[in-house]
């Protein structure tokens, strides 16, 4: 005898759970107007604005402005998604009990994390396509090897920022996370050697190489300007990734 609700419990295969989780996370990242502004509109404005401004201002660039700025804006886009968007989304997931709800579902924590990371990478691919397209329209001439090197650089950059983003989201209240994530993003965008290379910051430049923003910008500029994997910024990003992951794992509060 079997009724409508006769028990038939069980978890879906992990791969299919992760697929479900990824597609939901990615959809939510793209659906939200503010997130889209952060992900695409601001980077594109920074790129177009930067190229135009460089005709009138001296940024002390060693290459053509569009060739320097496009990889810098890639770095900005990766930072906005893997840090700011992730932190804000996760902060509200905590607030609305979503993390607790998923914690009572068959989805294991590793599946939750995988879903988040894959969704971030998916959004980043879309960002790179849009920004790259705009860059090319502005006359960007990248080193072709850059398109290969961007993969490891984006991965460690995402890991570095995502750990920090989860740390912020897992320790502060949702509103405080919103404020902090936006503030840090703005500060790094202006002063973190992301969009503009460190050479534009005069004497501060050397110190900025230790920030995740500066390191990600450096690595992407090396990749697209010279077709070179720059090991120092990669190392810096790896250190930030390990530190961020440790902080998040240690201090993240689920409720």
């Amino acid at each position: 005898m079997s009724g409508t609700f006769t028990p038939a419990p069980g978890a879906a295969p992990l791969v299919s759970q992760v697929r479900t989780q990824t597609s939901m996370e990615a959809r939510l990242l793209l659906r939200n107007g503010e997130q889209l502004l952060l992900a695409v509109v601001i980077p594109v404005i920074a790129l177009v604005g930067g190229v135009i401004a460089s005709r009138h201002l001296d940024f002390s660039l060693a290459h053509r402005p569009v060739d320097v700025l496009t990889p810098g804006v890639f770095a900005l886009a990766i930072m906005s998604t893997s840090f700011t968007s992730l932190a804000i989304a996760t902060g509200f997931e905590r607030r609305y009990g979503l993390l607790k709800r998923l914690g009572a579902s068959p989805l294991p924590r590793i599946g939750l994390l995988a879903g988040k990371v894959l969704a971030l990478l998916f959004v980043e691919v879309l960002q790179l396509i849009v920004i790259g397209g705009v860059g090319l329209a502005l006359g960007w001439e990248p080193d072709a090897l850059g398109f290969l090197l961007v993969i490891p650089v984006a991965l460690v950059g995402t890991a570095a920022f995502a750990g920090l983003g989860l740390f912020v989201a897992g320790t502060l209240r949702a509103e405080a996370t919103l404020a902090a994530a936006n503030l840090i993003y703005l500060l790094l965008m202006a002063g973190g050697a992301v969009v503009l290379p460190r050479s534009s910051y005069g004497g501060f430049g050397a110190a900025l190489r230790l920030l995740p923003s500066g390191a990600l910008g450096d690595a992407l500029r090396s990749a697209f300007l010279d077709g070179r994997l720059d090991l120092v910024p990669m190392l810096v990003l790896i250190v930030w990734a390990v530190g961020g992951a440790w902080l998040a794992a240690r201090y993240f509060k689920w409720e």
Partner: protein
Amino acid sequence: MRYDDKVAVDGLTLTVERGSITAVLGPNGAGKTTTLETCEGFRKPQSGEVRVLGLDPITQRHDLLPRIGVMLQSGGAWSGVTAVEMLRHIAALHSSPLPVEMLVERLGLGDCGRTPYRRLSGGQQQRLGLAMAVVGRPELVFVDEPTAGMDPAARRTTWELLQELKADGVTIVLTTHYMDEAERLADQVHVIDHGRLIASGSPFELTRAKGHATIRLVVTEPFPPDAPLSLARTLGPDTEVITVNDYSLLITGPADHSTLAKVSAWCEEQGVLPESLSLGQRTLEDVFLQLTGRELLP
């Protein structure tokens, strides 16, 4: 189970029979949610042992979670998703979920439309929470105050659904501070207060009192202060009189054909005018009142 130095649940021992509905009843702050969350593996007990379907909710979480359904007291979705999207999502995490459309229809979630979760009413969020708890075809569901904030129609729908789940062999553990909910649904009721079990039994066992009567007396003007004492003396040594409020007393004790007459004679003697005087079976509400001297709902 402690939070800092406050003991939330203390030495609570209860077992749940498969295929039954068990209600954990108690006032706010009694430790109901803490008890449930310990069973769901969200909290680790400082001492004692918890086994759910024979599994340890902490160390065997991975095996346990697919088999149980959980309805949280509040929240439990992305702020920007619609109810149906969220239910579909939870369904997709299970191997053989119930048809989402069926649950949407049964629980009236269709009227949530395109509204994001954060703007759903409390009752709508509750109904979604219940749907998410059962969609994976669990063997056992934990529902935390399932009908809090629901309108009467939704309450009825929820009760019907829970009864149908039980009929199909699902074990249900629910917390509530509504007596009528526990009396109507539960096979077994555990009354807890301050984290301790104060009574257990079927609603019938708990409310039945052989040879005892429960009398409610409501009067038009406040009782004199010594009224409970003097009435208890009038009725005999084993009688217990509890002040419900200034106008109302609850009397329990051995009863015979003269009991009501004695009560009304006492009223006359005290010069109070009864507004209502009734003799009957006690309710779970009365049981709680007798056990704790307090009312369940403030």
